[in-house]
């Protein structure tokens, strides 16, 4: 009779899957319910709440990061300005 060896890889994969999926059920993970989103809907949470500030930040970003394409700017840039 042939003794069967435990399949260590299978067990490891199974435990990893259980850990990943079980982690989603953990109470340690907090889900913000729809009725708890008052703070998230605040204007202060809007990244584009200040159009002037956004355009200045864009200008600096594009000037500095132009060589890598900047923000929505194609091609290389000199990084000047």
């Amino acid at each position, binding site marked *: 009779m042939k003794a069967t060896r435990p*399949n260590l*890889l*299978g*067990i490891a*994969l*199974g*435990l990893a*899957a*259980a850990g*990943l*999926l*079980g982690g*989603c*059920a953990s*109470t340690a993970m907090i889900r913000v*319910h*729809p*009725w*708890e*989103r*008052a703070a998230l*809907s*605040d204007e202060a949470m809007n990244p584009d709440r200040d159009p002037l500030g956004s355009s200045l930040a864009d200008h600096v970003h594009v000037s500095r990061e132009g060589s890598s394409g900047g923000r929505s700017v194609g091609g290389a840039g000199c990084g000047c300005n």
Partner: protein
Amino acid sequence: MLSRVKSIAAAALCLLATSAAAQVGPGDVFPRFEAAGFEGILPAMAGRVVLVDFWASWCAPCQASFPAYARLNGDYGPRGLVVLAVSVDQSSDACAAFVRKLSPPFPVVRDLRQKLVSDVNVPTMPSSYLLGRDGRVRFVHAGFYGERTERELRQEIELLLRESAPDK
């Protein structure tokens, strides 16, 4: 090996499914309003068709929904519909300012401990529940989509109002 992985993954999925709170849906008995400890006065609802709307002052579609609910209240209130707006605002000032601004013709209460909304586990804001005369949920509307939602609500309310009251 594959079967072992599958069985463990299935067990984890079961755990995930059972840990998620159930949402109140069609056919369920709606949780008791009295147990929530509302701020505000509850209207008489026994044997009537009830439209329960969960709203918040910070929710833009909620603001858009109030005029539609006011129309429904005007059209169907005399025939036995009760519209109950349940605010989930944690700020009583924000809730009061919203009510002052829109001055709804239907009763508004505040679920100040967010108990009822948690028990119901609404899928989104706003959400409305149409209860039949027996107090069971008959229709659920997740979100408010203007004329489309109002049209659907009218059809459903007509249907529910035609049903007779349950025997006591």
